[in-house]
């Protein structure tokens, strides 16, 4: 057991996966000697060598496309995209090939790859370094989208993503990379994909969130507790496909739902959760659903990023409204 940050846990998971399975490769820009701009791949080159930790030219389209080729050949490429604002050139390969190769060939070829990328605002970074566009990926059939929110979940989910026989987009909230340390046992144990994590049980209101805002959501739950509002906090974790049964069961218990995400509101993943409740959980709803999200604007430069991101008090207010709703 050792105390690690989330980025440390990610490095630990990468090293573990590479040690346990020689098909696992790490590639991307500056992932070698430099250990990645966030140091997520630190030490891997030294330990596993240049044939398994590959610095690529600055070319996201070919990083994505060559990963498809490597995966079809039986490797397990884990490609790092330096920031989420730079992963868009990879969308074409994800949509047209990575997510379809197995289906297109009726299982003859498959695409067990992982695309890792930092996500989210809150670190006073330059333009394009603060994106939360997980909804774009979640809408693509044939692949998974995973967002960890703690060192231990990052460790177990990344191991599961790498072991998964299908494509996984693994989005890492930069704001949490070094937010806190946690005991993580480097035992190679995976956490299940396609399932939520109930971080806090509660009777009065269900708070569903993922990624960096899990932090604010847990703070909000604390504050609410002091007001006597008992909030259940669910970390969606696998953003697509959604483990809806867990959410539904919680809403059937609490009758109230607040969804929190850092992405813009319109057509965000929160909408899908709300829609499913409106389809299958309507009768258990005792109040309108609320979404606490970023605004439908471009992520502002650092001077305004705090005004842009959902804050704990926004979550508290929303929860209060749904709980006190008559």
């Amino acid at each position, binding site marked *: 057991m050792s105390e690690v940050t989330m980025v440390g846990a990610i490095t630990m998971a990468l090293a573990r996966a590479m040690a346990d399975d020689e098909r696992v*490769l790490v590639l991307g820009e500056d992932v070698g000697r430099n250990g990645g701009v966030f140091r997520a791949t630190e030490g891997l080159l030294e330990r596993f060598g240049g*044939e398994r930790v590959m610095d*690529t*030219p600055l*070319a996201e*389209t*070919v990083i*994505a*496309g*060559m*990963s*498809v*080729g*490597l*995966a*079809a*050949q*039986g*490797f397990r*490429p884990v490609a790092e995209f330096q920031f989420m604002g730079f992963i868009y050139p990879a969308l*074409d*390969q994800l949509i*047209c*090939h990575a997510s379809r*190769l*197995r*289906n*297109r*060939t*009726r*299982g*003859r*070829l*498959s695409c067990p790859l992982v695309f890792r990328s930092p996500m989210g605002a809150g670190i006073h970074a330059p333009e394009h370094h603060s994106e939360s566009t997980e909804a774009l990926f979640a809408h693509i*059939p*044939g692949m998974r989208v995973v967002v960890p929110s703690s060192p231990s979940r990052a460790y177990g989910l990344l191991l599961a993503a790498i072991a998964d*026989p*299908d494509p996984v987009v693994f989005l890492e909230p930069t704001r949490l990379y070094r937010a806190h340390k946690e005991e993580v046992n480097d035992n190679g144990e995976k956490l299940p994909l*396609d399932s939520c994590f109930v971080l806090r049980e509660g009777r009065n209101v269900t708070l569903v969130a993922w990624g960096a805002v899990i932090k604010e959501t847990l703070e909000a739950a604390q504050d609410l507790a002091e007001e006597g509002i008992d909030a259940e906090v669910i970390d969606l974790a696998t953003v697509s*496909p*959604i*483990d*809806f*049964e867990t959410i539904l069961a919680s809403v059937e218990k609490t009758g109230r739902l607040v969804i929190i995400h850092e992405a813009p509101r319109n057509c965000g993943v929160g909408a899908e959760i709300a829609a499913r409740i409106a389809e299958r959980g309507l009768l258990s709803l005792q109040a309108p659903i609320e979404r606490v999200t970023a605004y439908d604007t471009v992520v502002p430069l650092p001077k305004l990023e705090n005004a842009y991101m959902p804050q704990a008090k926004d979550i508290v207010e929303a929860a209060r409204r749904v709980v006190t709703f008559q």
Partner: protein
Amino acid sequence: MNDNPDKASAQARKEKIVAEFEIPYRQYLDASGRLLGDAPAFANNREIVLPLYRATMLTRIFDNKAIALQRTGQLGTYPSCIGQEAVGVGYASVMTDKDVMLTTYREQAAQIWRGVTLAELLLYWGGDERGCDYKGPREDFPVAVPIATQVPHAVGVATAFKLRHEPRVAVCALGDGATSKGDFYEALNLAGVWQLPVVFVVINNHWAISMPVAKQTATKTLAQKAIAGGIPGIQIDGNDVIAVREVVGEAIARARNGGGPSLIEALTYRMRDHTTADDATRYRREEEVSAAWKTDPIVRLRTYIGANGWWSKEDEEQLVIECKDKVEAAVAEYLATPPPEPQSMFDHLFETLPASLEWQRKKLAGGGK
């Protein structure tokens, strides 16, 4: 056209030159079917040449049948490779079973040589994914419809070979239009800097739907695009199956022996409409097409093998009958294949369908929503 644009001025200024390049060209069998000097030895080996001829013929007859099937509503939109058969047959003939082919949608000639069955081709173009589950070349990629997107896959496959220290080569076919896309260039550059075992065969059939090559790029050749990736580039007569086999053969051998990637521009011509959904008379002149027919790779090769006394009128009639029989048998198999079950949509979406999608599969199996 802009070949060495600065040369004159540079020399005038006696400028220091830091890099020089040239693009060679090769042809062995001219349009009239005459073998030119220094042709490779195999050109005189009927055991090698006749199978090439047979393959181009089978492809031609298959293509014509496929077009007829589409016209009669029995096949979907179809892109024939009529006029380009020598390219596909030529490069496929120097690949081993262990090599991997990645291509666009117009490479039936190579696919058939590689062992993709005629029935599989018909299934795919008839709108059935099962046509991509090749029983023959299990590792070959299915055709990539989004232009140039297979080129990055090819460097990935080549990287896999290199990492495993396997003597295998990835052969990637793409069109002239595909050379305008960034994917092609990014892959070319990666292949160069990692010295990957990959061969890029650029099939310059002079048209990208309605766009002639001259409107696609200002370069004098497409072969010179290799210079931007720091790899060898060469132009060949793509209707000369001897040149294709020889030059691609050299490139594959070089790649196999650790000599790195190369790019070959094969000059040919798209004799027919872009696909059965296209009407080329809207944008290209009939004279251009009829002139191109004079360079037909099949006629050329037939003249050559005939002149060598390797091929009689009877052989020809015999071959045509054989090919037609093969094609008809494939058509029968295709037409007799029952359509896939609706719920098969979910069979290969993931290795194991996520529980949350089970209800959709069930609903589809039940029919309706």
